[in-house]
């Protein structure tokens, strides 16, 4: 219950007992979320990422790969975040980097959700041997050293944002599966489920209609923290020089900056700040969501 949580400090070291109330996510959650300052800031930052990422081609003043600026020039009116050794505009690079980050988070979320929910539901609903097997597999994936795997995969098979997403997606579903399984276990015997069963609804319909929506908030919390991890990992890989040079990503920019650290501070500062802001947003949202769901015990 305690292994590699992408822990926010406010969540308990495992995401264990179920919510009170079993009729789906309460409509007041969003409101409660936004009433807290952490929720507002968090959601705001995440929304900023989404907006910038989606609107990148229109927001960026130049093609981030265009090499027509002055080499290594500090922030100025024309180039608000400076240029790199080839004269590429860093501001455009950051904007398109948001897009890459967005893609990465979507890919990872999709994988983690699909696999995690599938396995967790299967384990919780079936129980017994199936449950055992699923949880053993999950435990194994929990223990795999994720960063090492990512380095090995990227360095030996080639860089690529999708590859990072795949590595993360295939290794990080385990905790989510546990969360979902816990929800399923606790709700399986609930009255409304009995009632639904008595009313003739099939097993899977119950899962989808009644159980999953309850697991969703906890899943979102977990996901928010996890996605922060993915972005930090992508940044680290970029710093180590393992980034895809055709995908303008923040990690790639961070890697480019390293040889010029003392000569062009802006190349290192701005990508780092962008990552900081985004991960902060994700963490804050996850925290606020946790509090809004009344999980503090």
């Amino acid at each position, binding site marked *: *219950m*305690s*292994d*590699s*949580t992408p*822990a*926010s*400090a*406010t969540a*308990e*070291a495992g995401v264990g007992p179920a919510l009170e109330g079993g009729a789906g996510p309460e409509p007041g959650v969003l409101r409660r979320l936004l009433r807290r300052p952490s929720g507002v800031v968090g959601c705001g930052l995440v929304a900023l990422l989404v907006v910038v990422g989606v609107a990148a081609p229109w927001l960026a003043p130049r093609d981030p790969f265009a090499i027509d600026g002055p080499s290594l020039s500090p922030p100025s009116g024309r180039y608000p975040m400076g240029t790199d050794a080839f004269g590429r505009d860093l501001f455009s690079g950051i904007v398109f980097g948001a897009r890459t980050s967005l893609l990465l988070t979507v890919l990872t979320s999709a994988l983690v959700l699909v696999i995690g929910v599938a396995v967790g539901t299967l384990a919780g609903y079936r129980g017994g041997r199936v449950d055992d097997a699923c949880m053993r597999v999950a*435990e*194994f994936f*929990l*223990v*795999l*050293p*994720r*960063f*090492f*795997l990512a*380095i*090995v*995969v990227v*360095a*030996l*098979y080639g860089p690529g944002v999708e590859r990072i997403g795949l590595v993360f997606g295939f290794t990080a579903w385990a905790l989510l599966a546990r969360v979902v399984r816990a929800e399923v276990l606790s709700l399986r015997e609930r009255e409304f489920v009995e009632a639904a069963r008595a009313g003739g609804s099939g097993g899977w319909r119950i899962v989808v209609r009644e159980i999953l929506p309850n697991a969703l908030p906890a899943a979102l919390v977990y996901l928010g923290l996890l996605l*922060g*991890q993915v972005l*930090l*990992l992508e*940044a*680290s890989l970029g*710093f*180590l020089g393992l980034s895809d040079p055709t995908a303008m990503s923040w990690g790639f920019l*961070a890697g480019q*900056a*390293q040889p010029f*650290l*003392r000569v062009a*501070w802006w190349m*290192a*500062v701005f*990508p*780092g700040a962008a*990552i*900081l*802001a985004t*991960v*902060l947003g*994700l*963490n*804050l949202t996850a925290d606020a969501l946790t509090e809004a769901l009344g999980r*503090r*015990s």
Partner: protein
Amino acid sequence: MSGRYLAWRLFLVVPTVAGILVVGFVLVHLAPGDPVQALAGEHGDAEYYAFMRARFGLDQPLLAQFATFAANLLTGDFGRSFIQGRPAFDLVAERLPATLLLISASLALASVVGIALGIVAGSRPGGVRDLAVSGTTLALYAAPVFWIGQLVILLVAVPVGWLPVQGMTSPGSTSTGLAHALDVGRHLLLPALVLASQEVAAIARLTRTGLATELASDHVRTARAKGVAEWQVVGRHALRRALLPVVTVVGGRTGHLVAGTVVIETVFGWPGLGRLLVTSVGSGDRPVLLAIFAVAALAVVVVNLVTDLVYVRLDPRIRYR
């Protein structure tokens, strides 16, 4: 918690690590490229490569290679480094102490600083100090660890001057004993601090929350009513319970610490396993790569196990099947 459970968990360590190694081995050996180039350099001819390939068993089918690998593992033999020609195990053993030193120093620093900050924040929840600490820790937690390292170098080390930013010892130093320890300590300070910054956030926030909760609980209220001094209330009654989750968080974050170590060793030139990993991966030095992989896997598995056991020990509410 039963001894049988303990035995079962201990028993599981071996197959888990083995499973991880299989994954690693397959990944490494399925990667494109002929490993003999890394082994033999680029100036040989076809005959030379065939000779080297046969010598190192690289012309065997994958399963045979894995069998040899597994058999050798049992004797602690990871093969010889392609690049350095020495046993991979030796290379890893040489670098391990530096990395262990860095990680322990970081954890120690993070615990001390984190708990201290957590107390400061949690003893008066909602106050100014609480917000300040929470804000800082949140930012630290969200920042890429290499970035913090770079900023520290630019903003702290370069202006201050006497804090070294490279290596574990002063160049050419022949000091021993206390002088040597001090030298290492001076070099350890910045990397350990930067690596600790991530953990500080987690620990501080957990301590804060736990403390705040405990301070609001009944028996603390009772103690206060009885007139027990505030510091005793905080120290004796509340803190012990509040520290429980810290243990588990530290254990659970081993994976991230390991990742952070790789990056920090690169930024500060710390001669540990992280640097060795990066160079091995770049040069295609498969035996060393797998040896490091094994060490990392073992570390994570063992730490997880220990953390689980400690947690169960400390909190009797949790039961395992």
